[in-house]
Each structure stands twice: as structure tokens, then as C-alpha cells.
């Protein structure tokens, strides 16, 4: 426990250094308009409504405390049903209604369709849930921010860890040919190839459910890989790790949150020791998280749904940016989002140059004494 707190403190300190100091400017005036776009009806409403609830809770809270810059906040909720063709209309509507900043959209497809329109109108958009890597990595949308890790963040985390922390020079990337495992492995492969100092020595898929993996294990051994990055789930991971260890190989094994599962440790037993896996950061102990979930239960009488905490953090970040910028000017707000960190249920949040939230998303875990422990 004590160790965890020390880690938290370091993170808070680091983010504070990253994000710099603050300046307060006060001015009263007409209400600030916060656009909230997402699926509020239709098949995917369960993804969008929790975000709307989160925005309402945050706004209610801040309005009660006197608003931002002395101005009250008003929500403009717009439904895009998660459809790209409707999302463009949603964007146009929010722009014509003169929203100051937008929290949304929910689905990656809808966000991609709408983001260019917002960009042309110089309006900032913070998505709680659009994970498509291109949105930030293309560099085309300086107005786009998000409080969720991109699809490739996990692969990047794994490769960074292997190359920068463990300093491995030769890496093998293995996957289970499934959507999840192969998708991740493809990103990992690209990151290894781009990385400085590490070399990709093997990239292959294995058949899930096979009775024996000794052939691929021999191949890994022959490739001279110092580490294996595996994209897939725990049944295959535990078979491969066990067979590697039985053959006396000490190759580092790094995997994903499909493997960060208690069953993996149970099944692989002693062979699980020392296996690394990336997984979502644990935010359940954050007091702000507890408070946000409590508030939701009190107001709506139920547990919050998908992306609630991400949306909560996105709304806080949006309002904080206006507060710190002291205006609703695009450049000022964008600068504030990149510089000023804000305490949210996801931890201290501020954004990198491309718009991804720093420190949100995945952490590395290692199996030690039969449990997954966060790598510090």
C-alpha cells in the first residue's frame, strides 16, 4: 500500500511539472455553452447516455460553486446516434448554436466524420471514448483531445516498456490470429520496427486451442529473441509460457490485458512468475472516482455506465481549460489543455501535443508471488 501511495505522489508531482502553473482571471458574463455530443438514443445509447449524465453532474457541481469565471454553464446536448452521417449535422448544429467547447463524440466513426467540421470552425472537442489512433496521430486535428487511451496505446505501452525499461534488443511478436490479438500485435510490430535500438526478429500467429506449442517455442528460441510480445488471451499465453520455461528458456514474456487475468496465474502457476502484462490503470481507489459514482447513484439511482469516468474527466478538463485560459478563445483554451493539469477521477489529466491524455490508460503489471502487481 505504502508503495502505491508513493507512486501516486510521484505521478502527481510529475504531471504538475509537466503541466506548469496556473493563472486565474475572473469575468462575469453570459453562460458558457458546453456542447455534449454522442449517442443519446438508438442502439448505442448505452454508450452515450452515461457521458451526458457525467457532464450534467459536473456542470451542476460547478454551477453550484459559482460557475467558471463567474459565468454559469449551460449544456447543449446533441444526439448523433453514433452515426457518421448524423454526426456531421450534429457538429454543424453545435457550431451554429455557438457552443464554446464540445465534450464528445462517443463513437470513433462519428467523431472522425465530425472532427473536420469542428476544426474548420476552430472549436475544441474532447472525446471520452473515441479510441481510433488516427484522430490524434494524423496531426490533422489540433482541436481534438481525448481522455481515453487510443487503440494502439496498449501496444505502445508494451513496446516502450520492453525497449526503454527492460532494454531488450531483439523482440518477437506472436499473436493468436484473432481480432484482438492480431490487431494489437500489428501495432506492436510497427512500434518495434520504428523504435530505436530494438529489432523485430519474429512475427507470427499461432492457432488458438492447439494441443502443443513446442514448435513455435523452438522457433522463438532459434530467433534469439530476448523478449516475446504476445497479443491474445490467457489460454494460449499460459501454454506458450509454460512450454518456454519447461525448455529452460528465460525469454521475457510481455502480454496484454487479455492475459492480465487471475486465471492466467492460476493455470500457469509457477511459470507465470515474472510475466509482464499491460492492463487498464486501476482508478477505483481514487476519492474523486468514488465521489463521482456516489453522485451518479444519488442523482440517477443506478451504477454509471460505459465511459462515465472518462466523460467526467473530459468535462472537468474542458471547464478547467476555460477557467485557466480565462476566455473561450480557441488558442488560449488549447494551450491551457496542454499545459494545465486537472484532478479528475482518472488521476491528474493534461494532454500531450497530439491531444492524447498523458498518464490515462494502461499500466504495466508483473506477476510476483502469484499476483499481478503494478510495475513501479
Amino acid at each position, binding site marked *: 500500500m505504502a508503495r502505491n501511495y508513493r507512486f501516486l505522489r510521484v505521478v502527481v508531482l510529475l504531471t504538475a511539472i509537466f503541466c506548469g502553473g496556473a493563472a486565474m482571471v475572473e469575468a462575469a458574463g453570459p453562460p458558457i455553452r458546453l456542447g455534449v455530443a454522442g449517442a443519446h438514443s438508438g442502439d448505442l445509447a448505452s454508450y452515450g447516455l452515461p457521458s451526458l449524465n457525467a457532464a450534467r453532474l459536473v456542470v451542476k457541481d460547478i454551477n453550484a460553486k459559482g460557475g467558471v469565471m463567474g459565468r454559469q454553464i449551460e449544456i447543449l446536448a446533441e444526439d448523433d446516434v453514433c452515426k457518421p452521417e448524423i454526426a456531421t449535422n450534429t457538429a454543424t448544429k453545435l457550431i451554429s448554436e455557438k457552443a464554446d467547447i464540445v465534450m464528445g463524440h462517443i463513437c470513433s466513426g462519428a467523431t472522425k466524420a465530425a472532427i473536420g467540421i469542428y476544426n474548420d470552425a476552430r472549436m475544441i472537442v474532447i472525446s471520452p471514448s473515441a479510441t481510433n489512433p488516427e484522430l490524434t496521430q494524423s496531426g490533422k486535428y489540433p482541436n481534438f483531445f481525448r481522455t481515453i487511451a487510443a487503440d494502439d496505446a496498449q501496444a505502445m505501452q508494451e513496446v516502450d516498456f520492453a525497449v526503454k525499461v527492460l532494454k531488450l534488443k531483439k523482440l518477437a511478436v506472436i499473436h493468436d490470429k484473432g481480432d484482438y490479438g492480431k490487431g494489437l500485435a500489428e501495432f506492436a510490430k510497427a512500434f518495434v520496427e520504428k523504435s530505436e535500438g530494438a529489432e523485430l526478429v519474429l512475427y507470427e500467429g499461432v492457432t488458438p*486451442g492447439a*494441443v*502443443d506449442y513446442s514448435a*513455435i517455442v*523452438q522457433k522463438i528460441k532459434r530467433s534469439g529473441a530476448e523478449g516475446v510480445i504476445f497479443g491474445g488471451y490467457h489460454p494460449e499465453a499460459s501454454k506458450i509460457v*509454460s512450454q518456454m520455461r*519447461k525448455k529452460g528458456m528465460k525469454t521475457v514474456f510481455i502480454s496484454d490485458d487479455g492475459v492480465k487475468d487471475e486465471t492466467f496465474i*492460476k*493455470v*500457469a502457476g509457477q511459470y507465470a512468475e515474472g510475466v509482464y502484462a499491460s492492463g487498464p490503470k486501476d482508478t477505483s481507489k481514487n476519492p474523486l472516482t468514488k465521489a463521482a459514482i456516489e453522485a451518479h447513484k444519488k442523482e440517477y439511482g443506478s451504477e454509471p455506465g460505459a465511459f462515465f469516468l472518462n466523460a467526467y474527466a473530459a468535462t472537468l478538463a474542458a471547464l478547467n481549460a476555460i477557467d485557466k485560459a480565462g476566455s473561450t478563445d480557441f488558442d488560449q483554451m488549447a494551450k491551457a489543455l496542454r499545459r494545465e493539469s486537472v484532478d479528475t477521477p482518472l488521476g491528474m489529466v493534461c494532454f500531450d501535443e497530439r491531444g492524447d491524455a498523458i498518464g490515462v490508460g494502461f499500466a504495466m503489471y508483473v506477476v510476483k508471488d502469484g499476483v499481478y502487481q503494478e510495475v513501479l
Partner: protein
Amino acid sequence: MEYFLELFFSGLTRGSIYALIALGYTMVYGIIGLINFAHGEIYMIGAFTALIAASLLTIWGVNQIAVLVLSGLAAMVWAAAYGFTVEKIAYRPLRHAPRLSPLISAIGMSIFLQNYVLLSQTPDFVPFPALIPDFPWLEPYRSIIGSSDLIILVSTAVVMVLLTMLIKYTRIGKAMRATAQDKQMALLLGIDVNRVVSLTFVLGSALAAIGGVLIASHIGQINFAIGFLAGIKAFTAAVLGGIGSVPGAVLGSLLLGWTESFATGYISSDYEDVFAFALLVLVLIFRPAGLLGRRHNQKV
């Protein structure tokens, strides 16, 4: 050369694993001409039985070799009971029905048994204890062959020899061959065909259980669905070697294991199944009855 040897032994292990399951397929087909799709599930049930027995025995503090033998026996008996029952309720009533009916019945049985274990046990993977001890004298060679690989290899060879002798030299073996040739005629000559068929299922299921125990101990985990893929691969191997033939099942399994292993080692594991099934198609084009299969009657 060392790499070649390593792949050779990987293929041998895989092949022996397939062979342990394929022997049951081929026996049943040899006698009554039915492809018993529930065979993979019997293998899975054998593994589950062994797991339960082994857990109990370990709690009672029995030593490791005894745990392996006793839980193996428990699995054989229990799986044999399942095999016997499955034959009685799903295949016997359809013995004179068109060929397709028992086949559908077999697929139904396979789905039923899978879901039965899913519901009565667990949908998760459960760890299976390493019942096969690590031999210290094998330590220097462990990068090539492990103790569980060796045990599987030896078991497959022993089972194959015993089975061949049983069919060739014993009274019941003679009855089996007679039943395989002509059920009506065998019946007229006073052979209890129903008993012979039941016994075939009991034997095949016990073999599957041996496979279940050894393979589960080798890979260290089981769940309700392990029988499906293993069953399909073993069936492929049996067809490759000539379904109905005992040595054919073993030969086909080893060939399949080696093909997969060398394809993985020298080309890419992405294509291991492609090569395995390409081999199957090639063999069947030139020898439609499989490598050691014979075209008509004389199926055992």
C-alpha cells in the same frame, strides 16, 4: 541439425497426442462405420474426471505416481461408462437407419456433452496439475524433449501395439473383425454383435481418457471445449492414415504432427493448418482410402 531435431520431436509429440485420440475414432469406424463425433468430448470428460480424482487423491496425500495411475484409471472407467451410454442411447437405435442419421446424432451428442460440462462444471479454463513427474535424467535434453512428451510417446506406442494384438490374436478381436466384415453374418454365427459394439465403444473411450489425462497434464489446463479442436485434428489424422486402420491412425497422426511442426519451424505458423490440410487433400487425391486404408470390408 539441432533445430531440425527439436522440430522433429515437437512434431512427434503433437503427432502422438493426435494418435491417442485418433485410435478411438478409427476403432469405432472400423467396427460400425460410424464417425463418432462425440469422441473428442469423451476425451474432454476423461480429462475432467482425472482432474477431480487427482485433486481428491492429492488432498488425501497419495504419492505422485499413484495419483497419475489412479486418476488415469478413474478417468478410463468413467469415460468408458460415457462411451457405453452414448452408444446405447444415441447410436444403437439408429443402427439400421440411413448412414446420415447416426452422424447427425453424433454431432448432437458432441454438442450436448460440451454444454453439459460447460453448465455442470465451469466455462473457464481450469488448471490441470502436472501429474507426470519431471525425470531428472532427462534434464540435459529438456530443450528437445520433456518428460511429458516422452510419456505420451511411449503410451501411444504401447497402446497401438496392445490394440493391434488384441484385434489380431484374441477371441474378442476375432469377433470384432467378424462384426466389421459383416454384421448379419457374424450374428448368424453366434457372435453377440451388440456386445462387440459396446465393447468397442468402451475401449475407444478408455483410450480417449488416457489421452485426456496425459495431454491435459502436458498442457496444464482444460476447459469444456478442448475436445473439439483436438477431435477434429485427430479425425483428420485418422482419415489421412486410412480410417478403420489402427497403424494407419498412428501413421496419419505422426505425419500430421510433423507437417504442422515443420511448417511452423521452417515457414510460418500462420500457415500450419493450411499445410496440414493441403497434405490431407493431396493424400486423398492419390489414395482415397488413406495411406493404410483398404477400400472395402476388412476395416479393422
